[in-house]
């Protein structure tokens, strides 16, 4: 299984978690990004994510492999949803298993930060006032 995936359909966190379970590990940390109903004071109605698929897959995979080299962890997996998402939908899931919690927390945080900075995925927010815009921070 690749360590990083792009999904057009809803992410199943229970299934991803289960695939990581092992009695070698004492700690598991996961991060989920949910579609929030507001952004910088604007009322959000829905989101689109657009992806440069080939490059996102290779860059995401590289991030997870770098995390495994940088931190004392056993496993790491990340999935990013793309397409049209509704409020409350799961947009991104990152799970890390490790012997101890220090490495699991640090690596999970590092992976989501790197995904946000490096993976070619773009978010368009649709607001309740009818406007929509691509975010290019």
């Amino acid at each position: 299984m690749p360590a990083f995936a792009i999904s057009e359909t809803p992410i199943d966190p229970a299934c991803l978690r289960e695939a990581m379970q092992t009695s070698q590990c004492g700690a598991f940390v996961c991060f989920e990004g949910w579609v929030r109903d507001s952004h910088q004071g604007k009322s959000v109605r829905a989101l689109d994510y657009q992806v440069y698929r080939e490059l996102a897959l290779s860059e995401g995979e590289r991030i997870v492999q770098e995390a495994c080299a940088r931190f004392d962890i056993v496993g790491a997996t990340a999935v990013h949803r793309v397409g049209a998402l509704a409020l409350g939908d799961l947009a991104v899931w990152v799970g890390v298993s490790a012997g101890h919690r220090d490495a699991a927390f640090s690596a999970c945080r590092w992976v989501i930060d790197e995904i946000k900075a490096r993976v070619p995925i773009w978010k368009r927010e649709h607001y309740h006032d009818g406007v929509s815009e691509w975010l290019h921070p």
Partner: protein
Amino acid sequence: MKVSVHYFASLRDRAGCVSEDIEMADGVSLPALYAECCGRHGFDFPRERLRVAVDDTFVNWDHRLLDGAQVAFLPPVSGG
């Protein structure tokens, strides 16, 4: 030589297409190609804010383009 340029997010909206083929002089540089695209579509991102990929790999702006290259100018990402 001919290169294909691929657009994403606000660049795609502005260009009004997912990609286009552009005929350029042999050995054209990436900055010159981006200038050509800006001229065609009125992109307002300075080059410094973009990353660039060729054939599905991130490259530097001084990367040498070959005929048939698949080029993507990438605006700042906002996944997560």
